[in-house]
């Protein structure tokens, strides 16, 4: 089904008696065979005010369409959303609604926040078919509860997003990366030193013996900060493919499951060692050590490792995608979901 308006979508949900899988670009494949509900009929930028740093778009708008429009105006989505289509092995064109539903956020998260931090408004159709709005199109808004945050990262289980609004940032006029060649064991300390400096780091990663620290902004400032960081970290200015890291390209054509761990940055290297002992084959660090992208043999349960934080199975079929929550939190989540989607028809296989 492919509704062409919010109204039509609402009618579909009202009349639905069996589960629906919401499909944006189709990056995340469902695990069940429920009927597909496509958002691609709800597409297009509804409002763009560059001087107010705000953009409103229908949920089915392709991400690339938005990124192109912003680039033409020297602006960007602050959170550097990832495109995991290649990693998932699908020919999908991610939509902005899918980005929001999965809270997709790239390397710049450590300085500019996640998708949920830039998201300032949503419209959605809940599981009763009721059209709801929350937040709006202004940068500061504390009117009523913040359901905007709740919707971001809820994987379509609380409602079908129809429209989303963002605050934007000026695109960086220049950027530079400082490279430090070192072992994974020491990388978290290097990245902590970078982020503990006043040099406004906008990316910190470690792959295969290379720690990379990025600065971005006005040209003169970038030159100054890159030099300062190179001297602080005893590194040198060089090249690093941030987009490849963002999209986890390195694992795209490799066999196996792909996991994402979010932990306290200083605990990243230790967790990596533990995961390797369990059988993980490749590990990349983002978010200053706080995010681990892990390639592991199919079906190997890496949640057996010791860590404080959370793990998500990004690619793979044999194990649960989402990490179970402690009982009191799980009870709240279940109750919320029952309020938003009492028929339990929206993306019923997710977040369980």
């Amino acid at each position: 089904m492919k509704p062409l308006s919010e109204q039509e979508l609402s009618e579909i949900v009202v009349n639905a008696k069996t589960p629906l899988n919401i499909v944006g670009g189709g990056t995340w494949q469902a695990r069940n065979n429920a009927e597909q509900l496509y958002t691609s009929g709800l597409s297009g930028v509804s409002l763009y005010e560059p001087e107010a740093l705000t953009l409103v778009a229908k949920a089915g708008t392709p991400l690339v369409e938005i990124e192109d429009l912003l680039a033409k105006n020297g602006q960007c989505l602050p959170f550097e959303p990832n495109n995991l289509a290649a990693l998932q092995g699908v020919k999908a064109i991610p939509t902005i609604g899918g980005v929001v539903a999965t809270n997709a956020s790239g390397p710049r998260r450590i300085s500019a926040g996640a998708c949920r931090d830039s998201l300032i408004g949503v419209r959605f159709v809940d599981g009763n078919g009721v059209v709801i709005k929350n937040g709006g199109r202004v940068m500061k808004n504390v009117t009523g509860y913040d359901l905007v945050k709740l919707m971001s990262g809820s994987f379509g289980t609380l409602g079908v997003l129809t429209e989303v609004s963002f605050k934007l940032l000026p695109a960086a006029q220049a950027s530079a990366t400082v490279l430090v060649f070192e072992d994974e064991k020491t990388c978290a300390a290097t990245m902590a030193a970078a982020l503990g400096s006043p040099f406004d780091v906008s990316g910190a990663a470690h792959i295969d013996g290379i720690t990379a620290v990025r600065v971005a902004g006005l040209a003169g400032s970038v030159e100054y900060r890159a030099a300062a960081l190179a001297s602080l970290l005893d590194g040198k200015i060089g090249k690093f493919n941030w987009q490849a890291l963002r999209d986890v390209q390195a694992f795209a054509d490799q066999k196996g499951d792909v996991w994402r761990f979010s932990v306290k940055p200083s605990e990243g290297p230790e967790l990596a060692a533990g995961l390797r002992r369990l059988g993980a084959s490749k590990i990349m660090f983002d978010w200053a050590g706080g995010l681990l992208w892990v390639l592991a043999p199919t079906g190997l349960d890496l949640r057996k490792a010791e860590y404080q934080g959370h793990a998500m199975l990004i690619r793979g079929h044999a194990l649960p995608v989402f990490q179970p929550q402690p009982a009191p939190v799980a009870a709240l989540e279940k109750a919320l979901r029952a309020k938003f989607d009492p028929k339990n028809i929206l993306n019923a296989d997710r977040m369980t």
Partner: protein
Amino acid sequence: MQMPVANAEIIARKAEIVARLRSVLPIDAVIDDPVATKVYECDALSAYRCPPLAVVLPASTIQTAAVLKACHEMGVPVVPRGSGTSLAGGAMPTADSVVLGVARLDQVLETDYENRFIRVQSGRTNLSVTGAVETNGFFYAPDPSSQLACAIAGNIAMNSGGAHCLKYGVTTNNLLGVTMVTMAGEIIELGGAYLGSAGYDLLGLICGSEGQLGVVTEATLRILAKPEGARPVLIGFDSNEVAGACVSDIIRAGVLPVAIEFMDRPVIRAVENFVNAGYPDVKALLIIEVEGSETEIDEQLGKIVKIAKRHNPVELRESGSEAESANIWKGRKAAFGAMGQINDYMCLDGTIPVSQLPVVLRRITELSDEYGLDVGNVFHAGDGNMHPLILYDANKSGDLEKCEAMGAEILKLCVEVGGCLTGEHGVGIEKRDLMYEQFNRDDLEIQMMVKDVFDPKWLLNSAKVFPLTASEARRG
């Protein structure tokens, strides 16, 4: 302002309720003497007052859980309170409620510079969080003007902002985790020293929920390395429109200052009389601050000044020293106080799309003439968060009502042009009954359904946020 009728049956049980509270808390942590509870009768929206039944001051999460469990079992309403600086009446009690103050929860629990966070008890004041980390070169970014007094608990409940949020975001963007106690007395942990959450973003939902979903007792906050330096520039214009256009141009040019503050003539004149900051007598004044090393500051200010000059400013002053910077900020920081010298005032907090700035300022001037009440505007221009200050005389009968009516019209205007009722102060009791201007029934119903999940009996701060008519059936 209407408040729900207090439950006489609960008030009649006061002795029994206080005895039960005393049985779960240390002796000095329960206050029921009417003279002593009077201190808690209002917050910074002081036009509205009502002493509570009793006040409890727990000193730990465990004590907080015990006291909430007791109130829950007795069916007694609870109003959480930080430092009582809310401008929206968020911490105002009802006569049948127990105020739960977190003032004794003021400890730093953990500082971790390597992972850039601090864990504190929620009663700790905003400024003292930065105070705890600044010798190590770090700071906590959200900086409400009330930061000397307000507590992290209140900041989280209201999702407070500050002068520097254009760059660093508001409370929710700097909050990593909380320990919270539900009305039923259950302790839950949300988030922590890592990014994101395994399930729903309940942390984001709690932040800004105005103390209606749970009582926050501890918070993990993101701390940042202090920039090398900061410098403001002061620019005066002979019209609000031109100042507004200048702000738009700066943002379009790809420069993102940490702060863009706007003051109009009534405020400029008031602060000049009050603190003598040496401001030019212009129609509109911008204070724009940028951060970084000396060279970086020069680069950014160079761009800003170039853009400003295209708009023919009447005055343009770049700070050349610490002292000059302080002087530029002096007037802005004293703005509320200066207006308070003239008369009582009501501070509005609507946000508008910045493109609508000239229209809204013009309409506010018209309303000021219609109502015969003076208005000054001082606000965060970069993000459209307006703070019109309407002057009135509290001792003159009818003046407060007139002022509120005018305030309501301004807030409706904010919504009409695409904005919202409140950008950082919260709804509380003040804007509760205007909620239908911004939301329809369905929008509010689903929010109330969220409260149903966290507080099924609607005992926690229930007279706030939702129009009384909307929440009536649930409040019982």
